[in-house]
């Protein structure tokens, strides 16, 4: 090699090393594009498939009528829609305060090993199969009360939601700058008020996202309903009695022998999917609106 004062390799566009770098870049780029494509493909396929099979059967009657006996045409899933809404709402009423309260504990008392232990337990709990959660709710609520009930379904959903809310709330609290907490404490604001006035409002957007995530997750779970809410072909607004829910109805209809049921299972899936999509889009829009304030 001659002693050239200007190193040429980095600007030379036809050198062997340059070609090698360029081809590695190309391979990596195509590889990542493929991975992205596969992910998006499955999502779009699921959406498209449900849309194709379900949308045609969704009409006003489907949303507002009760199920009809097998073999008859018509009928809808109104009772399951209302049942799902009631069971999930009650579950959220239980899970939101418990999950957030526990997150506050975990965040504010990290010195005690207990806080870290609770966080660890929450992570384990997110991995527990939902059918096991259903069995647990069966033992905890259905057995003592002597009947399947919407209440038992809510308890099962709450168990699924609590760790999701706890973990997302804890992450949200951790992002609140120490300087804001200190600003509040230095004004002589007690710790509990600092949490209520400063920590919670500052993290409210992330908290809401966590709650929506937990609700969406619960809305789609059928397994925990099998031995809790149980399902009900009739109107029922009493949470002490068995109640219909959408995912359980989808499970029942999809595994049933009738063509009409299969159609309705698709239609119900479509409704569920649209609801979850619309909820998350609305939440995002709302949060973006808040951020612009």
């Amino acid at each position, binding site marked *: 090699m001659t002693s050239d004062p200007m190193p040429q390799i980095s600007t030379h566009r036809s050198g062997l090393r340059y070609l090698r770098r360029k081809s590695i870049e190309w391979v990596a780029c195509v590889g990542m594009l493929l991975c992205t494509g596969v992910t998006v493909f499955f999502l779009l396929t699921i959406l498209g498939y449900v849309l194709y099979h379900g949308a045609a059967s969704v009409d006003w009657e489907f949303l507002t009528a009760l199920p009809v006996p097998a073999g008859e045409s018509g009928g809808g899933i109104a009772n399951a829609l209302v049942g799902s809404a009631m069971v999930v709402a009650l579950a959220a009423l239980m899970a939101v305060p418990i999950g957030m309260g526990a997150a506050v504990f975990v965040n504010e008392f*990290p*010195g005690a090993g207990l806080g870290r232990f609770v966080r660890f337990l929450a992570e384990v709990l997110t991995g527990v199969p939902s059918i096991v959660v259903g069995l647990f709710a069966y033992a905890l609520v259905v057995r003592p009360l002597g009947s399947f009930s919407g209440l038992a379904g809510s308890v099962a959903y709450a168990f699924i939601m609590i760790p999701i809310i706890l973990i997302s709330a804890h992450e949200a609290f951790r992002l609140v*700058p120490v*300087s*804001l*907490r*200190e*600003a*509040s*404490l*230095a*004004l*002589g*604001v*007690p710790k509990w*008020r600092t949490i209520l*006035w*400063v920590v919670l*409002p*500052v993290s*409210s957007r992330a908290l809401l996202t966590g709650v929506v995530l937990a609700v969406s997750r619960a809305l789609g779970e059928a397994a925990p309903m099998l031995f809790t809410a149980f399902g009900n072909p009739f109107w029922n607004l009493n949470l002490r009695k068995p109640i219909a829910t959408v995912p359980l109805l989808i499970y029942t209809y999809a595994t049933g022998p009738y063509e009409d049921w299969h159609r309705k299972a698709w239609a119900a899936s479509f409704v569920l999917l649209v609801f979850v999509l619309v909820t998350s889009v609305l939440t995002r829009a709302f949060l973006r609106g808040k951020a612009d*304030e």
Partner: protein
Amino acid sequence: MSNENYASAEKRGGEELRAPARASETASNKARLEIHGLSAYYGKTRAVSNVSLSIQTKRVTAIIGPSGCGKSTFIRCLNRMHEVTPGALVEGRVLLDGEDLYGPGVDPVEVRRKVGMVFQKPNPFPTMSIYDNVVAGFKLNGSRDRRVIDGKVEESLKMAALWEEVKDALYKPGTSLSGGQQQRLCIARALAVDPEVLLMDEPCSALDPIATAKIEELIHELKETVTIVIVTHNMQQAARVSDYTAFFYMGELVEFGVTSKIFTNPEKHQTEDYITGRFG
């Protein structure tokens, strides 16, 4: 040595030694805070060692020293904010008007209402309006009378020399203000609680020279009503605003005295080395 405000120091060079001129009248003054044998730790690391000094009522006391010398830790001990840090520990006594802030049964929340604090970076509450920021601490006094609260907002913002700039925008978010305005908002917020002592932890280090000059002017006005302790990296600033200066080095109080004496005729060679820029 910090040079960031050198220009403004030169500009105001003529009045650099103004503050110490008043120090002669402090002989009969009484101490608001008396600190006896104060040591502060982070875990096993000792950040402040056995510091004793008196803070005079309605005077400005500056704490100077190189980074990591324990200045900030020291003033955080004066309103019991040090113990907010996990693993932190304080030894010694801090007497506010004769009462030990670390005595048994003393509630740190009450201490912080008497000894307010302004931080290095302006930290208004982002979810609150200017109005709500000012009375965030004051509202705890329990007053719900709208006129009382309105009056307090105006009074505090006037004391912090911010009223004229924000009086038509009180319901805008506190974070919409400029950095210097945010810092004055934080000062107004601290003043609204009617503290006896105001601790300022490098209040100008995140501000430009013009905003810095405004805060310094404000400090001159505020010492008519409150006792001020200011930590600063900037020695010109200490000379400009303070009546007394304490020089900290490696967690120890090296020298404490009237500002004019510290800056013109220090007793310890370490102090002289630091203020002449030989280290730090």
